[in-house]
């Protein structure tokens, strides 16, 4: 599947296109098929996302998983600071990242 990711213009936070808006959570990401360029142009023009791009990902029973390690790390946060990730209370949250 193809999913879209970028950064919030104001906060810089990593975001994922959920079909309607930009979510902080990669599990909300949806397959955009062949519409990546159209969505990216529209959303960046509207200042709803910054530096956005399309990536490959897979979806299984665990959720949406970006194909590349760099985007998996983006999805959760720095592997060396679990306290700063999106799920600081869940020590197993990053098991799928590396």
């Amino acid at each position, binding site marked *: 599947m193809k999913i879209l990711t970028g*950064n919030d*213009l*104001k*906060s*810089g*936070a*990593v975001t994922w296109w959920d079909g309607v808006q930009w979510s902080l959570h990669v599990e909300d990401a949806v397959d955009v098929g062949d519409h990546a360029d159209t969505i990216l142009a529209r959303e*960046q023009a509207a*200042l709803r996302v*910054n*530096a956005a791009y399309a990536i490959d990902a897979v979806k299984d029973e665990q959720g949406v998983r970006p*194909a*590349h*390690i*760099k985007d998996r*790390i*983006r999805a959760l*946060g*720095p*592997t*060396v*600071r679990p306290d*700063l990730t999106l799920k600081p209370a869940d020590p197993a949250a990053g098991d799928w990242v*590396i």
Partner: protein
Amino acid sequence: MYKYDTYDQAMVDTRVEEFRDQVKRRLEGHLSEDQFKPLRLQNGLYLQLHAYMLRVAIPYGTLNSAQMRVLGDIADKYDRGYGHFTTRQNIQYNWIQLDQTPDLLAELAKVEMHAIQTSGNCIRNISSDQYAGAAADELVDPRPYAELLRQWSSFHPEFLVLPRKFKIAVIASETDRAAMKLHDIGIRIVKNAAGEIGAAFYVGGGMGRTPMIAPLIREFVPLDQLITYSEACLRVYNRYGRRDNKYKARIKILVHELGKDEYTRQVEEEFAHLLTQGIEPPLAELERIKAHFPDPAYDPAAPDTLDRSDPDFALWVDRNCAAHKQPGYMIATISLKPVGGIPGDATGEQMRLMADLGRDYSFDELRVTHAQNIVLPHVRKADLYALWQKLDAAGLGTANLDRIGDIIACPGLDYCSLANARSIPVAQKISERFAAKQADLGELKLKISGCINACGHHHAGHIGILGVDKKGTENYQLLLGGCEGDDTSLGTITGPGFSEDGIVDAIDKATEVYLAHKQGDERFLDTYRRVGMAPFKEAIYE
């Protein structure tokens, strides 16, 4: 240390307000990201893996306590409670919000700091010896010369759009503690046979994907021609440096392709022309700057002895303290490399503590080292024990300077959008694995980069590690034999790379080879140079 005059302050304040307007226009949609990106980069603001990252300049690594305190406050107020001291003697904040950046920069400006020219193809922060003004082996304090170069290079209209970024280091000691020969220009302040002070110029060094050691192109430039000669070096580069390929755009490539002799000939030709143009600032300006760097008011009666009865303290003194030019004083290095910690990171609270300790024990001065530690340059020997106790209580008393645990590591793939592999977890594993063995290994400088850009100086490590992307998986190449000091050398790759755990095992084997072959007081590097790669390679890949 240097104090801004009204002109310096006005420049920085004006730049803050200019950037405030640019941020406003970006947030309102009047500037596209393509238009805004070069503007934010000129103010040190990157968009990294998780958020905006701000790199703040610390000229030649020198800070006063008020500045360090503000850096700590910024970590808490604008970031997530910490900052990362870098190999350029700067600090980076990893979680900055765009709309808050102008206010942050305004707070920095109040203590004479900024983030200008910490990115982009311009002359970056001038680096120097962290022991400047204190070292026992120093000819003169190199910082006035670094400051003169900083003023010359700030907003220099001709050199704001160079083919590529440009890094200058200035030292004035026999011992090179600033990796001077691995800079675009390395300047060593020297004395000639006539007893005059001048500058030796090494040009065309660097790390990155094509590491090179800078050759000496001129043994002596008189002080009243320092800026003119620097300008000549830059002009030749700006004119002929490649702009068609960013990977071949650094001055090291130009010097290499032209050859040292031809590059030097062109510089000398340009230099002769520039001497007719009268661009050199008057020596009075250098004297004005020098007046900002007086010796502190040392206590001439400071006792020159130490009570070493506490063995942990004695170990810390032996590892982390260096000889001072003033009897009764020492230079103390605060390691930001606790066992299992993140190299170079400090919390806001730790920064404020270091600010207080700088104020109370070091004449209000601190330094950032390119090895990502903090130096208190002027500590009375009689105060060292009290200082160490306070550091130790705050987790800042690790005794490992220049040992295997004192690892230089770039942020790597945990933070950096350019990285191919994580650096920090590897550093943490090595730090933990070798903590007990550290004392036996003696001086051993280990450096890790998460990509070929070499921000972690892996080429210059006695042991270097380069993280690469191997079909989507992190892989780590091992290098041996690099060195950044007086006998600068570049590391050699041992062979095929390793996994994250495999690289730690490989280093363990390399250290065993060292211990087996070590003669007398040889360092790891000395043994490697004597016996060569073969026994190491044999053990590592057995």
